[in-house]
Each structure stands twice: as structure tokens, then as C-alpha cells.
């Protein structure tokens, strides 16, 4: 049975999709379509389920354009910008290169979803480890898409946007220097991570790109654009996958737990900060749209827990750690996790 599923999942899925569409289009009230899902009410009240679906779709629809913009830009850069050039422009002095790396995100705007494979490739290309990790931390926050979406989500408020940017960049710089102190001469990549076959994260296996880069040394821009669009389909699927899960968990939280519970917690700022960081970690929402989810907590939360969510989420989350586990050594990840967590708590408490 399992093998059957494994071999034919594509077909089964397609049949399912097709049948849903057939049922949808053949129903007489196509424009006022309603499905009887009252049987579900046996275990959960229908109204709540309806609200759950509404909140879920709402978060999805609001985040969708930002994910698409992120995917488009990152794919274009993937094709049109050479990381080698970027590396040559980086100064060799860590006191210059670490602060500079926080600004890379402005030229190479990629969410945390796409940043891990890029950081790994940069390290493979002998970019200093500390610079690459500063970039890895800062780029999801210090990038145009995140800046715009934070600005819009918080009702055109530059204050919140700028605080988020400076906290994120500050933590990234401190982590960069810590990496400079402790990991200057140590291997950070997993032993076999340079070959695709042994890479656990085959989601981001890069065989196709490599072959692509070597095949066309001077490809026409039209081919490049075409490939960038094709590549963005996959990046879109891989990114929305995590985003949809995050939106779903967030909507479950909103319908069943709600803000009333958060409100009582918000009075203890310490607990609220920890809870919001846990949420940011677990929800794994893409940094280009997490501001919209954070904005929904604005009514219930003080500024410190809110920024803990906004700053910690893009740097460190469940899907990010999974992706890093495929690329970096365990010691690096523990160091990374511990460092960012502590720094977020400290900075949020000291500055807000």
C-alpha cells in the first residue's frame, strides 16, 4: 500500500485535484458555491472551522504577492548576478567586511528561505566564514522586500521598520565578530557537503544550476530570463510550502487560543518575550511576510515581545535550522542558535 502510494502519488494527487475541480464546476450554484462540511462539526464547531479557513486564506493571500516578489528577484539574481564579483568586492579586513555584509541584502534581496544555500555556496567559494554568516543573518531583515512589507503591515510606520532593521543588523554584526573569534580557522561545512549526492537537503541540490552555468558560458539574456522564471517556480513551491504551514499554524492559534490568552501572558514581559520567540521559531514564517502576522499581535503585545518576534523569526526558525543542518556542522548550528537567541533576548530587553 505504502509502496503504491509512493510510486503513484503524482497520479493520485492529480486525480484528486481533477475530481475537486469537476465537482466544483459541475455544481449548479457555481458562483455561490458552498460545500456541506457539516459532518466536520461533530468534532469541532463549524463556525470555528469557517473562521479558521478564513484567517488561513487571509494570511495566505496577503503574503502571496510578497513571496512572489521575493522569488522573482532572487531567481533573477541567481541568473544575472555572479557571486564571485560580490566576493571580490568584499574587503579583506573583518572590521570592514562584517558591517558591509549586513548591507548585502539590499543588493541581493533573499528571504531566509533562500539564504542558506547561497551562504553555503559563498563559503565554498572561500568567502570568509564570518562574512558569510553575517550576511546569512542580516539579509532576511535588511532587504527591500522585508522593509516594504514591514512598513505596510504596521500602517506606514517608519519607526517600527527602522528599529527592526537596526536590531537585526546589530545582532548580525555581533554574531559576525563572534564567528571571527571562534570559527576563523575552523571548518564549518559538513564534510561532504560540496557534493550533491551526500547532501541531506536535496531540496536545494544544485546540480541543475551547476550544469547550467557550465553549459552556457555566455548565455543570452532571454535564455537566462527563461531559466530564471523556470527556477522561480521551484523556489516558489519550496517557499510557499513553509509559508502555508506557518499560516495554517498561525490561524489555528488565532481561532483556538486567541489573544485573550496572550493578553494575560503579556503582563509578564519575560514570559511574553520567550513565547513570542518560540512562536517565531515554530511558525517559520518567511521574513517577507511575517510582519503581517506580527501586526496581528500588536494589539495584545508590548513592543519588546513584538520585536523579539520580528527580529528572531527571520534569523532563526524551524525550517532554517533544518536547512542549515544539511549544510553546516552541528557545533556551528548550536553556536549559531545559542548566540542569536541570547542576543535577541538581551537586545530586546536593553533597547526597548
Amino acid at each position, binding site marked *: 500500500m505504502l509502496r503504491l502510494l509512493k510510486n503513484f502519488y*503524482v497520479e493520485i*494527487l*492529480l486525480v484528486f*485535484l481533477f475530481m*475537486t*475541480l469537476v465537482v466544483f464546476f459541475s455544481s449548479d450554484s457555481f*458562483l*455561490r*458555491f*458552498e*460545500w456541506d*462540511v457539516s459532518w466536520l462539526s461533530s468534532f469541532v464547531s463549524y463556525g*470555528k472551522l*469557517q*473562521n479558521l*479557513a*478564513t*484567517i488561513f*486564506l*487571509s*494570511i495566505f*493571500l*496577503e503574503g*502571496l*504577492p510578497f513571496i*512572489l*516578489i521575493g522569488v522573482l528577484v532572487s531567481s533573477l539574481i541567481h541568473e544575472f548576478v555572479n557571486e564571485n564579483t560580490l566576493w571580490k568586492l568584499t574587503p579583506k579586513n573583518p572590521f570592514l567586511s562584517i558591517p558591509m555584509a549586513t548591507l548585502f541584502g539590499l543588493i541581493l534581496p533573499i528571504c531566509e528561505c533562500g539564504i542558506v544555500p547561497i551562504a553555503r555556496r559563498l563559503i565554498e567559494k572561500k568567502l570568509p566564514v564570518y562574512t558569510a554568516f553575517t550576511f546569512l543573518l542580516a539579509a532576511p531583515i535588511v532587504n527591500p522586500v522585508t522593509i516594504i512589507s514591514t512598513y505596510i*503591515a504596521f*500602517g*506606514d*510606520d517608519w519607526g*517600527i521598520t527602522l528599529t527592526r532593521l537596526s536590531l537585526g543588523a546589530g545582532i548580525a554584526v555581533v554574531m559576525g565578530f563572534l564567528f571571527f573569534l571562534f570559527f576563523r580557522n575552523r571548518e564549518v561545512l559538513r564534510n561532504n557537503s560540496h557534493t550533491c549526492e551526500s547532501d541531506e537537503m*536535496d*531540496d536545494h541540490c544544485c546540480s*541543475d*544550476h551547476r550544469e547550467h552555468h557550465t553549459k552556457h558560458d555566455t548565455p543570452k539574456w532571454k535564455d537566462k530570463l*527563461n531559466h530564471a*522564471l*523556470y527556477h522561480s*517556480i*521551484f*523556489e516558489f*513551491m*519550496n517557499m*510557499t*510550502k513553509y509559508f*502555508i504551514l506557518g499560516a495554517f499554524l*498561525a490561524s489555528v492559534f*488565532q*481561532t483556538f*487560543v*486567541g*489573544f*485573550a490568552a496572550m493578553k494575560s501572558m503579556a503582563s509578564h514581559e519575560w514570559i511574553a518575550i520567550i513565547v513570542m520567540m518560540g512562536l517565531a521559531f515554530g511558525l517559520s514564517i518567511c521574513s517577507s511576510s511575517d510582519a*503581517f*502576522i506580527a*501586526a*496581528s499581535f*500588536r*494589539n495584545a503585545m508590548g513592543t519588546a515581545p513584538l520585536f523579539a518576534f520580528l527580529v528572531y523569526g527571520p534569523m532563526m526558525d524551524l525550517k532554517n535550522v533544518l536547512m542549515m543542518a544539511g549544510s553546516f556542522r552541528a557545533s556551528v548550528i548550536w553556536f549559531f542558535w545559542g548566540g542569536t537567541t541570547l542576543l535577541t533576548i538581551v537586545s530586546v530587553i536593553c533597547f526597548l
Partner: protein
Amino acid sequence: MSSIIRAALLFGLAFMVAYLIITRELSYFINPRFQYLSIFSLIFLLILGCVQINHYKRPSAHRIGTWGYLIVLLPICAFLLFPSKPLDASIADQKVYTYVPTEKPKNQSTDQQQLAQEDDSWEEPYKQKASELEKLSVITLSSKNYLEVTNVLMMYPEKFVGKKITSTGFVYREEGLKDNQFVLARLSMSCCVADAGVVGFLIDTPLSNQFKKDQWYEIEGTFEITKNETGEVPGIKLKSYKRVPALKDSYVYQQF
């Protein structure tokens, strides 16, 4: 084979967005102010779908896997299985009652500092609106002007206390309210449903028992300021009321 799935998913998502835009049901999910963003996603999803069809024989650039596809299918399923409609009033229990819109410019500390320097020019539009409202014999709150008017009312309460006012909303009660109190509430939306909050007027009346939770009423009365533990909140002194059917689009949108 998997390329067909990808194309179907992309077109499915595009269809969903297009359907919501055409039927105007999109406003049940996000603030109509951001409709242009959804139009962008619709166009881009269609382009991606066409690219996928053009390259249907090309090998995958990344492996996605069954679970990946199933998860991307989830929003389409939610869209097909559930009728699109605004949140019903029951969600209000999970929300925080703010009484007044959160975007109240007076309260934003960052603005305050800037504004102190730029003399009071920011206040002009509000002052203008206030003098416009003062001339009216009755202030009628509609879905369109709800947040704007409540903002102005709360900024210059001294000008408006005792003024006749009409408002529509659902009955909402919160822990800590007295027996003879209820809130004539609306859900306010700044971006999407996820950030919706309850706003409304506190009504203090011995008839309170007659107003059942989640029912919609149109209430006429005079504007007043009530104090409770969260500070000053807007209220209406009840004169007359009538039961009305729930509005189709129950949100009031933040206009910024």
C-alpha cells in the same frame, strides 16, 4: 508528470485569486487597499504557469516531493471547501477589544516626537474633518467613514459630547463589563483578517439584557465618553434602537 501538477497548482492559485478579485470577495480577506498586490500575484502566477507548460519536459530544478505539493494544495482546498465570507462575530472572543482604532496618530510615540517639531500641521485634516462633523445635525457612522470619524471623535471629545450619533454594529460583551453594559462593535481590518480587532462604542443601559450577543443593531443616541480601567472609551447614550440584519461585509477598513 510532476510538471503537470505544478502547472495545475499555479493555475489553480491564479484561478482562486482571480475569482476573489472578480466577485469582490477579496475584501473579506484583505483590505481592498492592497488589491493591486493581488493583481500582481495573479499576473505573476499566470506567467509562471505558462512557463511551466512551455517547459513541461524539462527536469525539475529542485525536488519538491508529495508533501510539498499537498501543502501548496491546502489554500485551494480551503477556498473550495468553505464559502468565502467575513469572520463571524464569534471570533471577537478571541480578539482584543481596543474601543478605538489602533492607528490613532495621537498615541504613536514616534510620530509624537516628529510632530512636536513640525508644529501642528498634521492635525489640519483632522481639524477640518472635525469642523465638518460639527455642522452635521446627526453623525451617521457607515462602514466607509467608521474609523475616520471615531478617530476624530476621540481626538476632540469636548466638541462632540452630547452630539446625536447613529451607528450600526453587533453586540459584544467582554469580561469586566458590568451587567448593564455592552459594546456595539465592528471588526476593524488594517491589512488582513489576522490583524482584525474589535472596535466600537460602549453602551450603558438598563435595557442591556434585551441585546443578545452577536445580534446586529442600529442604535441612535448621543455621544459620550465613558471611563473604564483601560482609560477613556467612546460611548453612546441610548435613545432608540432597531434590529437590523447582519451586514454582508462586516469589516470597517483602515484607510491610512
